[in-house]
């Protein structure tokens, strides 16, 4: 038999999923898949998916922290991709402003009535200088959204296990004078719906987390388990 059979096609699903084929072979395989019978194509896809999900788990074995400066480089590269979007937003805002001016000119003053005072959360989320920093905490993630202009931030925990009985997680804002307690979290405090407000960022450069006994400490007594740079 000179023509490859559909069975050979399935044999190639694993090398295909592992990227263990040349670009030429990949292109040829893609063409054959497009022409293959539905059940064969589905089996091929299922195999590819299973291999990829498996290797995604296996990636735990090779995980390694990249240098910290890579984060800045990655985020900066993406920012530089955004100018057209920013221009669009500016244009939309200008258009919206023009509409409001137009409405006012027609005496529809109600459109300009000042909105109710936004909550601290809304102010932070709307702040132009809003930044987001996330870090791993006890197997979950702590995310801080903060604004220097508003001098406040929000902390959310995701999949962080509750602190062990008789302890709390305690947050510390650290500036050059040392750590200041920024609140504690008990088991309820790490649930997905819990949001913690950081009221006074001041000159702090880091938000750190420790585990503290009882209801928390005046100064950190435990080792710092996570540090999030507020920059």
């Amino acid at each position, binding site marked *: 038999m000179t023509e490859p059979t559909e069975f050979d096609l399935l044999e190639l699903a694993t090398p295909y999923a592992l*990227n263990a084929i040349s670009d030429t072979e990949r292109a040829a395989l893609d063409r054959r898949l497009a022409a293959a019978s539905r059940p064969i194509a589905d089996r091929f896809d299922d195999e590819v998916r299973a291999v990829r*999900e498996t290797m995604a788990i296996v990636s735990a074995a090779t995980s390694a922290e990249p240098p910290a400066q890579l984060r800045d480089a990655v985020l900066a590269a993406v920012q530089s991709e955004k100018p057209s979007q920013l221009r669009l937003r500016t244009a939309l805002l200008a258009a919206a402003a023009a509409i409001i001016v137009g409405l006012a000119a027609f005496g529809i003053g109600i459109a300009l009535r000042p909105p109710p005072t936004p909550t601290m959360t809304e102010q932070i989320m709307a702040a132009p200088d809003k930044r987001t*920093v996330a870090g791993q905490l006890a197997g979950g993630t702590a995310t801080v959204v903060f604004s220097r202009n508003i001098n406040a931030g929000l902390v959310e925990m995701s999949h962080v296990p509750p602190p062990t009985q008789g302890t709390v997680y305690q947050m510390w804002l650290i500036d050059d004078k040392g750590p200041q307690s920024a609140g504690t979290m008990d088991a309820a405090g790490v649930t997905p719906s819990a949001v913690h407000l950081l009221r006074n960022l001041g000159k702090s450069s880091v938000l750190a987390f420790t585990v503290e006994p009882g209801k928390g400490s005046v100064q950190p007594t435990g080792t710092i388990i996570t540090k999030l740079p507020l920059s």
Partner: protein
Amino acid sequence: MTEPSHGSDLDALLRRVARRDADAFAALYDHTRSRVYGLVMRVLRDAGYSEETTQEIYLEVWRTAHAYDSAKGSALSWLLTMAHRRAVDRVRSEQAAGQRESRYGAASVERPGDLVADSAIAADERRRVAACLDSLTDVQRQCIELAYYGGLTYSEVSQRLAANLSTIKSRMRDALRGLRGCLGVS
């Protein structure tokens, strides 16, 4: 799926990235950077190349997040498939430039000692994966190492091991079935 607790989060983040949400992108980076960088580093074995490639990968994520379809797999596997493909492309272009044997020829089992493992990925998950890798036969593991971490095609693996193509394909398939079973991937 690897971290059931995280899977749906990554999905949601990726959907937000598709809508050009820079905060979601930063969070996605923080959730996945050690897996991505570690895999790239394992394939490229050079910190400078790995940083460049990781940066390219995340830029591709930013540009193509809208193409992610959760019906076709988890966000993590989408991302790592892309990352692995990039790393392998880089290895192969180095090979084309004639530099590969010296740099990558070893494709050895050991992880470079100077890499700091990510403490966020629970030690028990790493141990579980390591145990599953250990449960493979030597020839199966060698196939995965040469192909997945070494960037060789299955035909190059067959040449390297002087084994015929169908043997190599079977070893790869059996290795993956073993890992799947061991890790409980449905």
